[in-house]
């Protein structure tokens, strides 16, 4: 496996280290190629960083407005809010 081939198979490896089809060849290449190893680590870290970020909080005053407009539309469609 070349660096180029490794790049194309990255997704499978990043998503599932045990994916057998690519695992063996991929692991062999990584063992002998530091740059590719670091690229794989970097991608995992990038994803982890986005996931670790707190979700954007919904502004409370928006939630109040949201609930009001949804209630209004609901009444238009169903005629009641029970």
């Amino acid at each position, binding site marked *: 496996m070349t660096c180029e081939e490794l790049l194309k198979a990255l*997704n499978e490896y990043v998503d599932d280290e045990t994916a057998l089809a690519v695992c063996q060849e991929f692991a062999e290449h990584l063992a002998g190629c530091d740059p590719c190893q670091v*690229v794989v680590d970097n991608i995992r*870290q990038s*994803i982890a960083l986005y996931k*670790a970020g707190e*979700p*954007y909080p919904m502004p409370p005053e928006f939630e109040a407005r*949201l609930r009001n407009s*949804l209630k209004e539309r609901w009444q238009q469609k169903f005629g009641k809010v029970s």
Partner: protein
Amino acid sequence: MKIATPLVPTTDEHLIGQAAGGDFTAYQELVTRFQVRVFGVAFRIVGQRQDAEDVTQQTFLSLIEHIDSFRGESSVATWLLRIATNHALKLLRKRRGLPTVSLSGPTDDDDNYSSLPHPDFIARWSATPETLAQRAEVREQIGSALNTLDDKYRVVFVLRDIEGMSVRETAEALDLTEGTVKVRLLRARLMLREQLTRQFGDEATRLFPDHEHG
């Protein structure tokens, strides 16, 4: 002593059914369950609060309009995030003065594995993602990095890697083939890796591939 009956959590699908029959409480429960997630996806796609609020509102208004057209082919979460994503993309196109066409269209020239962006700045990060994520300026930086991606790459990354949807669910939500999702995801990951490693990589550990890539 009286033993409390264990609460059986009502499924999202069950709530949709009740809401479709006119049960406003069930509908409100759905809004409660999904509003933070919908708002988060909207915010990451449109990149600012005001627009994210509009998209969130439109999404839950659409839920009222189409509440009886939920067929259970996908989960409620996938269905709702699909509606939210479509509203978000529509808003972006409107903001940019582009015609509102869908993402699905014919696949683009770069929806394949040739000429992938090659990693250039390769270095170990100087801190773990968990440590970095604590810092407010890092949250700004990763938000801006995400905003530099084309919409078509950003939405795939948001749904698959941030929201944790499967490749198949992402494909369903965006009306794309799984193959297109995978290649866009790879490009998004490579572009973000490049940008983030330039910011968080330790220059002293920088590596240079010992041969030219083809």
